[in-house]
């Protein structure tokens, strides 16, 4: 077993490393790379959080998109401070997820996946119909505050690390145990007096809070957003990061998103093979390394294998 002190030490070291690297990347391609990796890690962690209750949250693109658009409106249209934009994005996504989650989490498994997918598409189509936010062409002119432009990568990495820490703490807490219990057998959890439905809704809300912030960070990084950015494909790519990285530990999405984002850049050098790349990543991961990179590392370090639950649907 890896001792707690070693774990904490390595986490602190790696975080410091990440922050350090981000400080030196300036504003060029390297900076963009750091930003993409960081945001993808965040989205993957958000998606994974809902896997604790055994669901695949294909609605994530909807909440990322909402966060992006709300923050875009705050910054580009209303000229509000960046902090306000970030917070509004998070709150909007959380609020919407509470409403949507309350309704849709009555369903499970493939039904929940479909309804989430439908929700994402509905939102996307709504965006294309609204002139104020640019309709199909999207919104432009979303820039982070001048003070941050130099240090935007570092800012993002810092926020991502904080949110990852928060998600990790939640997962390790009693609340996290209840989530995993729900995934195992929600009838039993109900029997002992816990309101399973509200707990699931809360789980989705937390995930969406993070996704909303991710969307806002994304919008300010790309400076331009359009409805097409927030489609089902976003959720599928996020799924790829998790499958490659491994689901059983929060390090999984971190590893998966980092490695795949970097590899995708390399693959892109050979041509527009994005679909083939991500598709193969998922297929290979599912067929050959079901526990992801985290699983391989566990075996390598001879740690006890985490039992993997397949959804009981």
């Amino acid at each position, binding site marked *: 077993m890896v001792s707690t002190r070693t774990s904490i030490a390595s986490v602190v070291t790696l975080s410091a490393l990440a922050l350090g690297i981000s400080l030196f990347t300036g504003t060029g391609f390297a900076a963009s790379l750091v930003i993409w990796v960081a945001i993808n890690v965040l989205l993957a962690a958000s998606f994974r959080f809902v896997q604790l209750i055994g669901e695949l949250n294909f609605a994530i693109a909807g909440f990322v998109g909402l966060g992006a658009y709300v923050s875009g409106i705050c910054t580009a249209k209303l000229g509000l401070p960046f902090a306000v934009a970030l917070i509004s994005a998070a709150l909007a996504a959380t609020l919407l997820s509470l409403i949507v989650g309350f309704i849709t989490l009555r369903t499970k498994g493939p*039904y929940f996946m479909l309804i989430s997918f*439908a929700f994402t598409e509905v939102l996307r189509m709504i965006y294309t119909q609204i002139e104020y936010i640019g309709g199909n062409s999207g919104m432009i002119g979303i820039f982070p505050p001048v003070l941050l432009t130099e240090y935007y990568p570092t800012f993002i990495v810092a926020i991502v690390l904080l949110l990852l820490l928060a998600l990790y703490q939640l997962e390790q807490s009693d609340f996290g145990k209840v989530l995993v219990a729900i995934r195992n057998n929600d009838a039993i959890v109900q029997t002992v007096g816990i309101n399973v439905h509200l707990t699931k809704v809360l789980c989705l809300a937390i995930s969406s809070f993070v996704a909303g912030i991710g969307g806002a960070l994304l919008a300010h990084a790309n400076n331009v957003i359009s409805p097409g950015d927030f489609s089902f494909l976003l959720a*599928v790519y996020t799924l790829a990061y998790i499958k490659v990285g491994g689901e059983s530990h929060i390090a999984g999405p971190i590893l998966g998103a980092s490695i795949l984002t970097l590899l995708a850049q390399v693959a892109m050098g050979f041509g527009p093979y994005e679909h083939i790349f991500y*598709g*193969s990543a*998922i297929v290979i991961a599912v067929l050959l390394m079901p526990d992801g990179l985290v699983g391989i590392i566990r075996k390598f370090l001879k740690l006890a294998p985490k039992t993997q639950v397949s*959804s009981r649907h």
Partner: protein
Amino acid sequence: MEIFGQLFLNSLQISAAYILFSLGLTLIFGVMKVVNFAHGEFFGLVLLLIAIIVPWLNSPALPLVLNYALAGTASILVTMACGWFLYHFAFKKFQRDMVGSFVLSVGLSLLIQGLFLEFFGGVPIKLPDLIEGNMHILGGAITTQRFILTIIALIVAATMCWLIAATKLGKALRAVAEDHEAAMLQGIPYQKIALYGFLIATFLAAIAGALLAPVTVISANVGSDFLIKGFIAIVIGGLGSIPGSIIGSILIAVIESVGGYYFDPSLATLAMFVITMLVLLARPKGIMGNG
């Protein structure tokens, strides 16, 4: 009255394709408890192959009908082989694992579409009409070839339903779908039946492609467009239920044709998604679903 006739005809043709799709998806789900998100790619493969073969074989000496027939047969056979391949190397390991098989199929769908895009290019193709002329039925107009192809598709679908209801193979498929362990105890060779189910489903998607080739605009991601609708149809109808999948397909087809007629197509799609959400909220396991 004329509008009603037109809408009826439109719905009929659209539903024919969706029914073939959703029957296949239901079969796979019923027998293997697998949700195959890549199912549409069989349809797409047939269309793309036909789009390549028909112009290639085209010559004054070869009647168009024969050309299409040859292209169709060849494409279906190739696609069935691919189906066999996918079954053995991918889906067989993920039977009864709904989440795992879904994730795998999502990856496959993405990969295959990427490959299609690579080999086929992004330019959509429209093949020459097989049969010329229009027909007028019930006050609505429809091209003759669409009408004939629709009827053939519906006959295929009906034959499939009969096969499942009345033949020995059909009974075995249903037994496995209901309780695969009990079916095995009764001596039903489960693996063989699962393979047959998968191949029949592949065939249904393939023949849908062959029948729609003359009337569809063919592009690399045509399969996934159809698949989403087929997927919606089976989930609304209730996973694993054949009557459910037919009801779901008809519902989707009607929404699409009515929506497309009175509003624009993207609004129709929006309506479809909203209705999907409403149906699932009222009946979380689909209209005919019972898990």
